[in-house]
């Protein structure tokens, strides 16, 4: 049914997570922005809460279970609502929640039962990007060579989130460079493995509370059983495509992050507008509003649009519908939209948008990454364009 009034269950999830964000994340938001790389010990309170579970292992093509209770929202929708609230609290800290790394998502999705036993309770980061391979993830050069009972990994990974705080890392490496994408597999590398070094952590524009680091793999030897998923090396691109497909689930989450950060900016801006005596009645013709009001209204309208695209993508995933296009649309719109909203709010706020006495300047710095990681806005537009124009990679580059 096409009907967009939020159901009571959604409101319940939202209110609950808003309380968590407001009470646990906001108060320490500035602290960890300033103390970049300091471990946020307050987040240990989240340990033991299973953030990323795994439902029964699904066969390929099997539709996900629809929520059994029609009054309850699905898992993906619940997640984007949660993520929006948490990032309203603090985006960098949300990325630093224990045991909720991107590696955890990969493990939940493809690990064998035996691997789930070994790694399911560890904090897992994901290492894909290299200095020469960003958007072109299929061009990575980190190698994995089978040697007896081990894989031997060589290479360097950059921009790994939770690099310092994680227990293990899911590393993408190629077992056969000539095979291109078909040769790319993922491997679990535990901290402390000889030949696996955290080289340095980055100093960033924003999400400074999130530890982003570079790993060097130098003849790093891991057990044969650490190749994630089936140990069989299939001569197809299925493995690569499979991992790219998980991005269909994570893209709406990144979009939700953008919604959360942008909303933080808007909420604060509205507060200040009202304090300054601006009456926001959502009625007066925008031509007759002050410039501030008009800019504010347009930003709020954009936020609503961003959120609806995000909810749609998540709802479709819960509904078992293929949502590749809609997931990319949500990230394309929200990534850019959120960036522009946080910029605009900092502008409207004047001196209040520049000073570090308020968080607005931080939200502007935080939101920028959301149009970049997990598929840049440009890649999202490429995916959308190929999809609506029905063009292949070679036709539209």
């Amino acid at each position, binding site marked *: 049914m096409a009907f967009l009034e939020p159901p009571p269950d959604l409101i319940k999830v939202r209110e609950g997570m808003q309380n968590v964000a407001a009470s646990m994340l906001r108060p320490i938001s500035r602290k960890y922005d300033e103390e970049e790389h300091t471990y946020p010990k307050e987040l240990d309170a989240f340990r033991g809460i299973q953030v990323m579970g795994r439902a029964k292992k699904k066969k390929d093509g099997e539709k996900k279970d629809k929520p059994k209770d029609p009054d309850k929202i699905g898992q993906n929708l619940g997640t984007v609502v949660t993520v929006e609230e948490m990032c309203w609290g603090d985006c960098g800290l949300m990325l630093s929640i224990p045991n909720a790394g991107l590696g955890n998502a990969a493990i939940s999705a493809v690990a064998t039962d035996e691997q789930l036993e070994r790694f399911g309770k560890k904090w897992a980061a994901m290492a894909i990007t290299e200095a020469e391979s960003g958007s072109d993830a299929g061009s990575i050069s980190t190698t994995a060579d089978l040697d007896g009972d081990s894989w031997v990994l060589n290479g360097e990974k950059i921009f790994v989130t939770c690099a310092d705080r994680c227990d293990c890392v899911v590393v993408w490496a190629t077992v056969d460079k000539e095979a291109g994408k078909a040769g790319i597999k993922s491997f679990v590398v535990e901290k402390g493995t000889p030949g696996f070094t955290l080289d340095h952590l980055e100093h960033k524009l924003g999400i400074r509370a999130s530890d982003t680091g570079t790993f060097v793999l130098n003849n790093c030897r891991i057990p044969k059983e650490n190749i994630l998923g089936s140990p069989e090396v299939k001569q197809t691109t299925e493995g690569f495509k499979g991992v790219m497909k998980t991005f269909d689930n994570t893209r709406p989450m990144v979009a939700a992050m953008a919604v959360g950060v942008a909303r933080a900016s808007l909420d604060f801006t509205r507060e200040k507008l009202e304090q300054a005596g601006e009456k926001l009645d959502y009625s007066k013709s925008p031509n007759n509003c002050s410039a501030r009001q008009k800019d504010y209204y347009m930003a709020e309208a954009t936020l609503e649009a961003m959120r*609806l695209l995000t909810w749609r993508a998540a709802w479709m995933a819960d509904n078992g519908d293929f949502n590749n296009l809609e997931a990319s649309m949500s990230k394309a719109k929200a990534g850019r939209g959120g960036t522009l909203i946080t910029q605009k709010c900092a502008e409207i706020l004047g001196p209040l948008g520049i000073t570090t006495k308020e968080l607005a300047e931080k939200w502007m710095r935080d939101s920028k990454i959301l149009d970049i990681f997990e598929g840049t806005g440009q890649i999202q537009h490429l995916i959308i364009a190929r999809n609506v124009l029905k063009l292949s990679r070679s036709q539209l580059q």
Partner: protein
Amino acid sequence: MFGFSLTKEQKMVKASFAEVVRDIVAPNAHDMDESRQIPADYLEKAWELGACVAAVPGEFGGDGMEYSPMLNAVVLEELAAGDMAFAVAAMLPSIFINPVLEMGTDKQKKQYLPGSCGEKYQASTAAVCEPRLDFDAMSLAATAVKKNGSYILNGQKCFVPKAASAPNILVAAQLDGKPQLFIVKAGNPGLVVGQREKNIGLYALDTYEITLKDCQIPAEDRLGQEEGCNYSRFIQKGRAAVAALAAGECRASFEQARDYAKKRVQFGEPIAYRQSVAFMIAEMAYEVDCIRLLAWKAASALEVGRDATRDAYLAKIYAGESAMKVCDYGVQVLGGHGYIRDYPQERRYRNSRGVATWEGLATV
């Protein structure tokens, strides 16, 4: 129940309007625009589908179905995807029927609904917009003063669709500082319908400026009589409707740009292969969805009777800006051909500027 996909019923209704669009509206949109008219039998074809009378009780000539702003939003989009001027004309009767049904007294319903819900298309209309720079639907220049059991209306209105043929005009005027709605019958000596307007868009739809000069109406013709009406709700519904119309027109603009870019070959390849063109089309695609979802959000709130002031306002202002951008890209992708009236893109471009301004043109 919450969700993003249409029900079977909604799909059926959408399909029936898509058929009229495919068979009659789209093939004739250009000629209607050029000739500045909509043939009466086209409007009858749309009238037969019954969208304007669906929610009117049987005793007044309607189908007695459940009132659904969401369904109306779907219909408006579908018609506008064929032609926006046609969409406004076809659904115009609702702008009078809907407020009378929802906010009129029993006497007013008995008096005015049957005439509007007849076998044949006959549109009464509404007059909200005013010809001034600082027009504001919530703060009107037109006034109503109560005097001896009558209301005296004074003011100037513009963009009144089909005013010359409308049996009744629902006029928005400020009463004691608050906007209210008043039914003015055709032929009222205080009502002067001007020459047909010439506007940038909606060429096929006849709109008029009207002048109210000491226009006297009986007190019983104030919508809702002594209690008056929820004018804000009337405006909210209008704003959601404009966003729905915009979604349809932008969808058509996007689809045409998409199809053209795949066929148009320059430098040995379809222009769709170029990122600069492909990215405009990608943006058009999701902006259509943004406009539609915002319209649906407002319509959903209205469906459950919640105050949709904020949702409708945001939907309209967003649609106003986004529709202009989408239809601008729509012309741009077609290059020089986008500028020629033989192709629909330039018409959509002209039409889309009104989205930011129109009030009281349509309703959900």
